[in-house]
């Protein structure tokens, strides 16, 4: 807080139901990504690296693992005095009953008391399920420079995909003049990244009004942003360039992992100046056996590879037995592929065992196969 008078609130309550069994027991922000990370490590590390000390994490759907995971703020260096990660699930209050968060804006509104404790000048609203690296301090500097009431980070998307996003139409100076949620005929290709900086006093007032509005969806995109525009407030678009992914489906989660295999991948997890922090595990370094063959792979500690790995990402503690082949696939933490098995164009969920000589996935499938249950070996 001392550094920039801004605290961050991460919206992490979503289920991500198009990730199917992967989010049966964990919320989407807790889904594993990139060999050793969970998705929520990205906004948390970005906060830590941007000099933000206070981070609230709003959880709701299947939050047991996520709550304990983010509460250990030391993982991201967010454990100094007057710094911390605060887990904020819905709660019963003296003057109101326990109620679920009715929308993204309501989640913040129900925690006005939390934010008020720190009396910040600015509040940064983030989404817990996006993969990207961003310096929020630069965005805040832009917010101040533009004398904005609210700043929204945007990314250029291909025009033909623009109708899948919330699109910001701006004037030449970068002021937002119109916001359209998933427009049929988009006028611009600047998609909202769901990253907002607000002046807290203003947002606080808007949230209190929104809470009482029976017709509101209590959503930033649908209600708060349009209301601010209608009130004639100064909203500016902060253009972000770089890697940004919202992994909503199995195909896109697979793809985001595959992106890491590219030697010039934009995300560059190896950048020592902007590390992404995560849980520390006491696993061994990776063991590559005498008959192993590895061609284009992203492999982390605790893995044991005795077979062949081609164009694949192996997460913490996954093992590939002798003669097994992993092709164009993602093995989540603790996956065990026994000898002779073949895994192709598949995403194998945490801890799943693929038996001896079994075959999963296929080279020409339209979609990536999600393997979330044990596959028996061939006798």
């Amino acid at each position: 807080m001392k550094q920039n008078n801004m605290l961050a609130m991460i919206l992490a309550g979503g289920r991500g139901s198009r990730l199917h069994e992967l989010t049966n027991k964990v919320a989407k922000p807790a889904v594993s990504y990139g060999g050793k990370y969970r998705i929520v490590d990205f906004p948390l590390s970005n906060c830590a690296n941007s000099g933000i000390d206070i981070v609230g994490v709003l959880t709701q759907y299947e939050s047991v693992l996520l709550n304990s995971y983010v509460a250990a703020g030391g993982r991201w260096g967010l454990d100094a005095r007057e710094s911390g990660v605060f887990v904020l699930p819905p709660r019963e209050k003296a003057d109101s009953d326990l109620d679920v968060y009715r929308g993204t804006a309501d989640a913040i509104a129900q925690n006005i008391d939390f934010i008020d404790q720190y009396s910040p000048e600015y509040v940064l609203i983030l989404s817990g399920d996006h993969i990207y690296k961003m310096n929020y301090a630069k965005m805040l500097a832009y917010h101040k420079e533009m004398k904005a009431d609210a700043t929204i980070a945007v990314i250029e998307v291909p025009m033909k995909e623009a109708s899948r996003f919330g699109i910001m139409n701006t004037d030449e100076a970068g002021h937002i003049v119109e916001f359209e949620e998933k427009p049929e005929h988009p006028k611009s290709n600047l998609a909202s990244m769901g990253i907002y900086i607000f002046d807290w006093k203003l947002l606080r007032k808007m949230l209190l009004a929104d809470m009482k509005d029976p017709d509101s969806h209590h959503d930033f995109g649908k209600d708060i942003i349009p209301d601010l525009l209608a009130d004639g407030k100064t909203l500016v678009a902060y253009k972000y360039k770089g890697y940004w992914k919202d992994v909503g489906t199995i195909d896109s989660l697979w793809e985001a992992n595959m992106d890491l295999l590219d030697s010039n991948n934009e995300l560059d997890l190896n950048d020592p100046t902007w590390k992404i922090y995560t849980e520390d595990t006491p696993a061994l370094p990776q063991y590559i056996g005498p008959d192993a063959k590895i061609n284009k792979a992203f492999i982390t500690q605790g893995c044991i590879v005795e077979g062949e790995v081609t164009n694949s990402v192996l997460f913490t503690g996954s093992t590939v037995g002798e003669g097994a082949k992993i092709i164009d696939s993602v093995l989540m933490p603790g996956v065990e592929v026994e000898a002779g098995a073949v895994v192709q164009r598949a995403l194998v969920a945490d801890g799943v065992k693929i038996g001896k000589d079994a075959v999963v996935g296929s080279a020409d499938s339209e979609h990536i196969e999600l393997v979330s249950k044990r596959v028996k070996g061939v006798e």
Partner: protein
Amino acid sequence: MAKALGIITSSGTHIRVEGMQEYRPIGAFSFLGRYRVIDFPISNMSNSGIDHIQVYVRRKPRSLAEHLGTGRHYNINSKRGKLQLLFAEHSSENDIYNTDIAYFMENIELIERSHLPYVVIAPNYMIYAQDYSALLNAHIESGADITLLYHSVDNAKEAFLNCDILNLNKQKGVESIEKNRGSAKNRNIFMDTYIMKKDLFIELIHKARKMSSMITLPQIVNASCGELDIRGIAHRGYFATITDFKSYFDANISLIDIKTAQNLFNPEWPIYTRTNDSCPTQYFDGAEIRNSVVSNGCLIEGTVENCVIGRGCEIKKGAVVKNSVILANSVICEDVHLENQVVDKWAKITKGREIISDPQAPGYIRRDDVL
């Protein structure tokens, strides 16, 4: 919680690892990619419920101090536990007087003040897994004054030459401790690991001081064999000592074999270390890698065979690295050929260089060197 104070000793003046040790004490040597040698004794103690640990360092404490930090990563209770780094500040110009007894003496109040009735003493230059609480129980049950840990080997003629050996009677009583002079194949190598009452330990320190300023802990224990009940307990599982350059190289290479490694690493007995937050390792098109142990954060495009690769190393296209130990952040450029080398941290081997040593006399490339 064990009733013992853990004490981790530094290597004596008779031990010297060429090259590497000029930069840091053996405890701070990188080991098997992501570890440092001292992670093994500290994790053994932490897993045994010992949460008061004193680490003694003779010189060059910087890398050790940085690595140990608060000790939190060793799973030591952050309120009840304590990891102390103790220096021999008044060390003598003449190294012969810088004995383990000298640094214990210098910090004797800290040992005396401990409320724990026993001490477990282990070295920072040996690699093994051992449950000290089981050892402590065995020690208490036996009624012995001192229990020493040893490992029986059949290659003492050519290996462990810098170590002490235990001469045992049939009842595992220790008759004497002496240097391994390589005169016999089968020997009980002393693992420089002791269990005794704290009061006896303090008594021995004072006794040693009175005798001579050059005397060491194993020497005073040896001198006490007649009057004290000193017994040996055999250690089983993987055991390696880092007592010269070749033994450092060999210990790393030996653990590339996963079956051997499973004798040291057990999921129930984790070895902790300080995280570096490196991302996973990236293998590019054309990389060939076999029989190797690789840490995170590497970029590998060349050929790697029978190697231990530290964190954040780059092995570029066309490079061939065989039978070598590459420490963190080293860069092996295009078309380099390396065999039987230890490449120290941050070194860079430039394009096309060929450095091949005899497997019996591996080469050493210094820290930060550009060759």
